[in-house]
């Protein structure tokens, strides 16, 4: 049984279907993960001087503390558990939980939905730390310069901290996006027909491990390269200081 090129050409349509699904999960996952990550990352800095001025009155101090604990709890929980357990929890355990707590008889989460939610929540926790680190790296003098012009905290975050921190987030975000893309291969366990699953199925029917896994690997490499190149382009476009 030598290397058969035709095995690859035959398998390509099915693998492309899988790659398409991998791509969809990844893109939805990182877009949602960015939203979660920015909220949780800023949340962990609530009430700190990194976002302008520390609050003075008791109410905003209390609110900031609650936000900080919620964001911190989310980040630590997700970072502290394997993604595959998170996927199992969302796909199998969460519907059970809903059923036992409510009267809903038939509650199900689609495998694809569960996959997207898992990536959103998982990437969000890591992106939160990227956001937090970048925001903390913004020179305090720039915050003071902004505040001394009489702008609001929201304007300070939107127009000064945000753009400067974002530029510094790009390299670690590139890492996280690529990790998230590769993590989608774990959804083989909840039966999502993404690229790894497609490869596994073809392999199970023709036993051509070499050709199939080589093709699968190259397809992942193409997708991760596309992510890397787009982030490099973005980085260059923003390289103004």
């Amino acid at each position, binding site marked *: 049984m030598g290397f058969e090129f035709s095995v690859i050409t035959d398998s390509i349509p099915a693998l492309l279907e899988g790659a398409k699904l991998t791509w969809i999960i990844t893109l939805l996952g990182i877009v949602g993960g960015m939203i979660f990550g920015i909220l949780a990352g800023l949340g962990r800095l609530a009430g700190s001087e990194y976002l302008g001025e520390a609050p003075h009155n008791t109410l905003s101090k209390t609110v900031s503390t609650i936000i900080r604990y919620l964001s911190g709890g989310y980040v630590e929980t997700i970072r502290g558990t394997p993604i595959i357990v998170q996927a199992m929890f969302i796909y199998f355990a969460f519907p059970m939980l809903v059923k036992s707590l409510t009267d809903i008889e038939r509650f199900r989460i689609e495998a694809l939905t569960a996959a997207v939610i898992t990536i959103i929540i998982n990437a969000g926790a890591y992106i939160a730390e990227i956001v937090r680190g970048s925001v903390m790296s913004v020179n305090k003098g720039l915050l003071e*310069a902004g505040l001394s*012009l009489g*702008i609001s905290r929201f304007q300070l975050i939107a127009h000064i901290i945000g753009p400067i921190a974002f530029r510094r987030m790009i390299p670690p975000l590139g890492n996280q996006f690529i990790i998230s893309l590769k993590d989608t291969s774990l959804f083989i366990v909840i039966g999502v027909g993404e690229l790894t699953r497609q490869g596994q199925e073809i392999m199970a029917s023709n036993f051509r491990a070499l050709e199939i896994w080589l093709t699968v690997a190259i397809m992942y490499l193409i997708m991760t390269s596309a992510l890397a190149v787009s982030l490099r382009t973005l980085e260059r476009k923003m390289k103004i200081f």
Partner: protein
Amino acid sequence: MPPIIEMRDVCKSFGQTQVLHNINFSIDEGEVVVIIGPSGSGKSTLIRCINCLEMISSGTLIVDNIRIPEHRRKIRDIRLEVGMVFQQFNLFPHLTALGNVAFGPQKSRGMDKSKANEIASDLLAKVGLADFHNKLPGQLSGGQQQRVAIARALAVNPKVMLFDEPTSALDPEMIGEVLDVMKSIAQQSGMTMAVVTHEMGFASQVGDRLIFMDEGRIVEEGKPGEVMKNPKSTRLTEFLGHVKHH
């Protein structure tokens, strides 16, 4: 006319360290006050308290009839009336010179972009940088950056300008251009100014009043020429000796 800035029994502590001890002083409209003193004497903290970048620990601060701590919610109103120039320039690195200067009018005064740019363009011309609209801070020399920073603070149209060692981070040959801009603001626009500096020439030429601080207290104050010529305390005599020899 009441003074535009007044401090009554102001104390400031950072944790256990008390940096300002019962400061009483005021600045009248149009007055240029120069604050000198050895490092760690509390002079920077004093002017940073005026625009509430540092919150006073006790006492009363009155800026243009806004009282701190009573009107704590009006800190932003104080800052609109009080511009600040920093030792390290602190220009926004992602904005052009024009963008830096237009930022205040647009964001804190709510002007539309074209009006803000017009103001910014006029101010850049005023500080001698009419040809530098599209330069980023990283492409400017220290002196040019500081002049953009002065224009940025002026753009919000404040009643008072604070300068926190504006020439201390500059190469010697660039100090003059920044001092010249400050001089013209004081003399042509009659701006009220509080300047922390070691430039004794500027203090005597432009200053209406000189304040010498040491260990968190105002030790001497008066007309710059007189204070410098006849220092009463040994501490100021020593300090002037050090400054003059550099």
